[in-house]
């Protein structure tokens, strides 16, 4: 055996000794439960939870600290699907893309099946992202360098386009919702020009509209409002859950394995890109899923295909985000920004050499990525079983309890009653929008991506001195731009082609 392999084996042995020690296993189990809880409570995000455990990580062994963060994140992103399915409030922003579908399945009595799909595909997606990190981190990390403001601009536009494509109902209504979200995102202090816009002198508005309270209002409060208007008989009809958690999940995985690979791949790449995380990954993957699907009309009305693809992508993004963080010290998302801080605190420098110098630590991160995702299966199953009971709670108790959840969740993000006000306003907006047949998902995406589109556009224009040519002349930017334009014009071309063909047929040629 070569010394190189002996080194690797020794490091692996050391790493597994660390990870499989009782204390680290205990930390993994605890942070797993904590992560499930944080993800399942709307308004609490994985980033918040990780920030909270930083002070504890100062006193932990680096392997233990990173194990806690990896586990917490994986659990939280899956757990966001639980309230998303059961009470239509995305637990974390990463579930927002398919909340409508999951809840629709719940109402049809297939909540358990939907959650089972979420769980199994989350686990697989997480493992895929972890494997990408293990196999190809140093080479994949270079993707981050292809991206400057031009590329990010197109990526954001692509994300926006996908939300309109997936939105249910007529295209015009989805577009309206998206534009509304984008417009609202321009409220607040404009950092490019140093001007306050539409803030009416309110200092809370200067910070802009936070999309988490907005999301809780649009999805959660609006559903409570719709529910109190519903007759009790109607409400009771959809409470029965007929399915088993893992019923048909494995065969779905087998059937859709190619789709899964595409989705997890999209998730991993978007995770690698700094500034785009699990939430965007879910949107883009969902849109791609619809484009490639044979049943695109099911999307938005309860498509297990869509859910499986989007939920694999958001968990795969987690592993992706660690790639540039470990290789170049560039965070792929907000959690890995904290991870870099933790590493440096421990005197460990994220750089390409870390894979050689700190081999045992890196291997223990790898091991935890696999272990945490495997642990997600039983813990997630228990969480689903516990969560399912929510549906059996009488409506008279459930609705006020959900309302309390909306209030506290929208308060939590920045401990301000302003957030509760935002939630209320968006609750009413969401209710009215859905009455009129407008989808609410694109509003959330507009809020998330609006600032990205605007800032990256403005930054790019400043960089080039007002010359827009670089939006197309850079190779990656140009390709992304072309892809976006094709996405928008393809339906027009197809329609033109179709009408031309029918005209030909009409002439009897």
């Amino acid at each position, binding site marked *: 055996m070569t010394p190189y392999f002996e080194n690797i084996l020794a490091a692996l042995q050391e790493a597994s000794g660390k990870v499989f020690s009782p204390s680290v296993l205990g930390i993994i189990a605890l942070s797993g439960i904590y992560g499930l809880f944080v993800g399942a*409570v709307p308004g609490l995000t994985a980033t918040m939870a990780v*920030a909270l455990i930083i002070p504890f990580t100062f006193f932990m062994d680096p392997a233990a600290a990173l194990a806690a963060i990896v586990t917490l994140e994986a659990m939280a992103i899956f757990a966001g699907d639980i309230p998303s399915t059961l009470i239509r409030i995305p637990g974390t922003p990463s579930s927002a893309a398919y909340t409508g579908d999951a809840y629709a399945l719940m109402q049809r009595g297939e909540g358990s099946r939907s959650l089972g799909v979420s769980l199994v595909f989350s686990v697989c997606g997480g493992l895929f992202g972890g494997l990408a990190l293990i196999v190809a981190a140093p080479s994949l990390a270079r993707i*981050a360098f292809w991206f400057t403001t031009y590329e990010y601009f197109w990526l954001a536009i692509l994300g926006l386009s996908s939300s309109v494509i997936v939105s249910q109902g007529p295209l015009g209504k989805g577009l*309206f919702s998206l534009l509304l979200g984008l417009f609202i995102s321009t409220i607040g202090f404009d950092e*490019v020009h140093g001007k306050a816009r539409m803030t009416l002198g309110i200092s809370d508005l*200067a910070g802009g509209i936070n999309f988490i309270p907005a999301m809780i209002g649009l999805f959660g409060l609006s559903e409570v409002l719709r529910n109190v208007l519903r007759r009790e008989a109607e409400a009771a009809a959809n409470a029965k859950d007929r399915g088993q958690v893992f019923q048909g999940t494995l065969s779905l995985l087998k059937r859709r394995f190619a789709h899964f690979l595409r989705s997890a791949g999209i998730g991993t790449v978007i995770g690698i890109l700094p500034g785009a995380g699990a939430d965007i990954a879910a949107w883009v993957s969902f849109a791609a899923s619809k484009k490639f699907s044979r049943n695109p009309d099911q999307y938005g009305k309860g498509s297990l295909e869509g859910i499986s693809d989007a939920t694999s992508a958001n968990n795969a993004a987690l592993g992706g985000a660690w790639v540039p963080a470990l290789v170049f010290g560039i965070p792929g998302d907000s959690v890995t920004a904290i991870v870099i801080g933790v590493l440096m605190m421990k005197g460990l*420098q994220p750089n390409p050499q870390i894979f050689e110098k700190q081999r045992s630590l890196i291997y223990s991160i790898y091991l935890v990525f696999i272990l945490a995702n495997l642990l997600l299966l039983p813990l997630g199953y228990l969480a689903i079983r516990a969560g399912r009971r929510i549906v059996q709670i009488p409506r*008279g108790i459930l609705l006020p309890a959900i309302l309390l959840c909306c209030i506290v969740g929208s*308060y939590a993000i920045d401990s301000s009653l302003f957030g509760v006000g935002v939630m209320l306003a968006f609750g009413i907006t969401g209710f009215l929008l859905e009455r009129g047949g407008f989808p609410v998902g694109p509003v959330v995406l507009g809020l998330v991506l609006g600032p990205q589109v605007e800032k990256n556009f403005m930054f790019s224009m400043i960089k080039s001195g007002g010359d827009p040519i670089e939006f197309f002349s850079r190779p990656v930017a140009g390709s992304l731009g072309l892809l976006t334009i094709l996405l928008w014009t393809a339906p027009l071309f197809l329609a033109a082609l179709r009408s031309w063909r029918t005209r030909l047929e009409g002439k009897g040629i």
Partner: protein
Amino acid sequence: MELPGLPIKKTLALALFAALACFPGCLRNSGYPSRPVTIICPWAVGGGTDAVARLMAKLLQDEMGAPVSVVNRTGGGGVTGHTAGAKAPPDGYTVLMITVEIAMMHHRGLTDIGPEDFEPVKLINRDAAAVFVRTEAPWRTLAELEQFVREHPGRLRASGTALGGIWHLACTSALLAMGLEAEAIRWVPSEGSGPARQELLSGGVEVVFCSLSEGKAQMEAARIRSLGVMAERRLEIFPEIPTFKEQGVDWTLEGWRGLALPRGTPPEIVQRFEAFVAKAVSGAEFVEFMGRGGYDARVENSQEFARTFERDDRVLGELLRQSKILGGGRGDEPGPWFFPALLLGGLALAISSLILKRLARPAAAESRSPLAQAASRPAGAWLLFGEVLAAVLVYILLSEPLGFLLTAALLLLDLFRRLRTGWLASCLATLLLVPGAYLLFAKLMRVPLPSGLIPW
């Protein structure tokens, strides 16, 4: 399930509120601090200010014997968080992690809040500005970079923070100190130094101005180099980086972070808090953390901090005027109303096209009208609908004076009853949900819920 007779209900409800009132009071002690303390951090999770704020929260919690939590009030280029800190009740329970931007924002007309709105308590660390280039960049020294800029004014692009932020000022003032135009390097705003460094690595800009601690990771990855730091002398933690002074540019510029209380806080509380902070920063943990993170820990007491405050307010205000960055962007890009106007136009177009479609098929639309369906709902349902909205409003108005526990209990009890849940079940559910939510959020997740009448 419903219990007959008023007295029992009354007793039940009374017992419920008594229990709620006692529930959080067990751990109360007298004097300051007698309830949780919140540190407002005006910058986002993952950044340096957040990391220092969280360290201070942990250390202060040990010193003060009361929970200390960090709340990130971000946005508005720091305006939102600093304003929240200035307008907090001056009782010593809301502390602001104040940053150098406070001495800049009001000069730029972004807010009325300025240094005079705070009681400075302690300066925690300083962050000297440094200049970074890519490792493979042709300039080996500051002088070489200066030479290039002198020969090609306006060619290079730099980034590091938003327009008018501290690192932007570092760029323009350093150029002025070299006898160059403030705009000899074009400033490309960014959302912080992280994105700026990524932009540097991917070739979007040629120079980045930020602190050495921020650039530490990529420096050690040998991706970027620092050509100099704008400090009086070399930093202990980065002994290999030369200062601007050594290289013949007599210029220093430092950002800082500190803790401050809102103006009007009673002097004895300010003193007690300062004593707690003083103990926290004298421990080995603080020194170790700051050293490892690459933060230049230079503690100043309240008087020194007040002088720093006053001096920087003057100096930075003057620099902002000299560097002509009081106004807005450079004018290469569309104005601030370009996007809102574009979007409003789009919205108007979308609405009119939808109306046109509707007009084209009025009959079909009429039969499926959701409003028509809604009209058939009983009036009671709409009343309930209004009540849910009112409940949220009542929470917004009452939770601060009454506290989370009482307000939430009142709201839940009322809504349970309106949805025809029995008294016993309502009381039990309230008793389970409200303290449960309190424990989960306030205790486990450290979200400081409104305390109101019940302080702990």
